[in-house]
């Protein structure tokens, strides 16, 4: 066997440097690397540039003071309201935001994974996403430690010279210093298997310089290689692997567990103010033994109720699921 990449969460998160341009896998409250985000808050990471979306795990970084700039397309916790820390800091003007579209993010990451500088599309034509007065890209770049990760300009408009599609937008590649994904299964050498939506993970992991995977289960590499067609990220793109059961709680992980609604509601209410977030963080983040203490505090009976019921991948409402 080649070298195992399995390390502790603390060791893995040491790979993230202040000022990194960072992307967290999953979306909204699904398969978010929450435990990894909490460890970044514990390690007091600073001046991160958040790319992609700002929901559950990302919003914890924003509340924890790790993020100073955001470029992305979504700042909500879905049914639980606008991401409370992002909302508060955006409305106070204490975080730099730069809007892009959902397809911009898709093709920007596609360009980065393909190693091409840009892709042309009509993505945000006609909208205020292209409003020069709201273009904060240069302010975002001021925060980034590696300014070369960000494009020189937000977009260029031109007439489609090939198929006469009218005005198209050149969307620059979205390059990343670091990507952290939480997945159902990883091999010891980093091969990743995802159930449910792949979100952007299969692009972002190939677009990033440093990749950390936290997994519900770490299995022998030989086992996950028995069916390579089912794998979503190759070991060759992954730097470090952490075994982290319940690593996306209070969000959901398909085929593993469902959302912890009460916890998500409590988060939304607690984090309306910075003092509220700080108090919440004292209880859930600043524990002596990190994620282990977090899980023990939640308790086995609470977690068992969240376990997915086959064949569904979640807990059906008839079995007491999400209400």
């Amino acid at each position, binding site marked *: 066997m080649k070298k195992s990449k399995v390390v502790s969460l603390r060791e893995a998160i040491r790979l993230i440097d202040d000022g990194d341009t960072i992307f967290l896998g999953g*979306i909204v409250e699904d398969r978010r690397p929450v435990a990894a985000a909490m460890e970044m808050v514990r390690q007091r990471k600073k001046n991160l540039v958040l790319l992609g979306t700002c929901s559950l795990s990302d919003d914890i970084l924003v509340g924890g003071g790790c993020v100073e700039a955001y470029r992305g397309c979504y700042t909500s916790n879905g049914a639980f309201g606008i991401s409370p820390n992002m909302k508060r800091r955006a409305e106070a003007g204490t975080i730099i*935001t730069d809007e892009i*579209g959902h397809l911009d993010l898709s093709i920007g990451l596609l360009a980065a994974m393909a190693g091409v500088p840009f892709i042309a599309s009509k993505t*945000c034509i006609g909208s205020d996403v292209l409003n020069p007065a709201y273009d904060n890209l240069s302010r975002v770049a001021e925060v980034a430690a590696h300014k070369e990760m960000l494009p020189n300009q937000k977009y260029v408009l031109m007439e*489609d010279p090939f198929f006469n599609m009218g005005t198209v937008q050149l969307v620059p590649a979205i390059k990343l210093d670091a990507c952290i994904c939480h997945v159902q299964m990883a091999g010891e050498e980093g091969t990743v298997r995802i159930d*449910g939506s*792949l979100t952007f993970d299969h692009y972002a992991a190939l677009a990033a310089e440093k990749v950390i995977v936290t997994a519900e289960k770490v299995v022998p590499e030989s086992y996950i290689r028995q069916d390579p067609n089912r794998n979503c990220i190759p070991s060759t793109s992954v730097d470090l692997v952490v075994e982290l059961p319940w690593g996306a709680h209070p969000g959901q992980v398909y085929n593993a567990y469902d959302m912890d609604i009460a916890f998500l509601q409590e988060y939304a209410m607690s984090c309306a103010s910075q003092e509220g977030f700080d108090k919440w963080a004292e209880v859930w983040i600043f524990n002596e033994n990190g994620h282990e203490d977090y899980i023990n505090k939640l308790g086995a009976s609470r977690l068992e109720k969240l376990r997915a019921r086959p064949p*569904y991948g979640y807990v059906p409402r008839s079995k007491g699921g999400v209400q």
Partner: protein
Amino acid sequence: MANKYAKPGEYSPVEAMVAHSARFLKNFDGKKGLIGTGLPLVASQLAKKIYSPNMIIFVETGQADANPQELAISIMDSRLTYGSSWQMGDPEGLFPLSRNEIDFGFIGGAQIDKYGNVNSTFIGGDYNKPAKRLAGTAGAVDIGVFAKTTVILMAHQKRRVCELVDYLTTPGWMVRKWPEGTLVRREELGMQGGPSCFISSMGILKFDDTTKIMYLDQYFPGVAPEDVKANTGFDIDVSRATEAEPVLFDEIRLLREEIDPLNIYKMR
């Protein structure tokens, strides 16, 4: 048959909005729709049960032909995965839009203007210090740009239905041409589509064929055209409006008993 209709007061304005949206989706039976988060998910479930059983649902988190067994609470709920034909990621969920495969997009929002532009980014103040920060673009901009048409659903309030949106997230009929930012017709930028219908909690609103300005097409029973005028932020034309067919008991029963028995979406 007289008793198949429910009377105002026997349902909420939000339930009426969702029921009428589901009815409008009759136009898309057998068609492909990209369905946005929130009440569009609820209305599309109701539509599949009675009006458009062969409607094909795509979701921006990568589900093709999603057939959820129970109501999803967000756009990437595990409930959308189980039963779908194909589950990939967000890029594969959005590429059907850009390759021109999506017949209609169905979205909510926080603000809509007389040209059918929708705002889901911020309200009030400045972009860099908004009075109210919202969810942002997500799929809303992409649906507005690429879908062959869009259907919009939103509660009808004076501050929401306005002259011009604070931030143009989803392009409607008159959109911004950059770098100047002048309002131009979407065709001028080579964009197809455009909103076909805005279903509010008071009625059904459409867009004039010539001016592309919103007008009241139908008002719900219990709502007067003057009420719509009073709750709209611009001088809306109500001269063409007729009363909508009342809400069916059957629609309300399905919403309450089968689709959202736990009132997750707080429709009542």
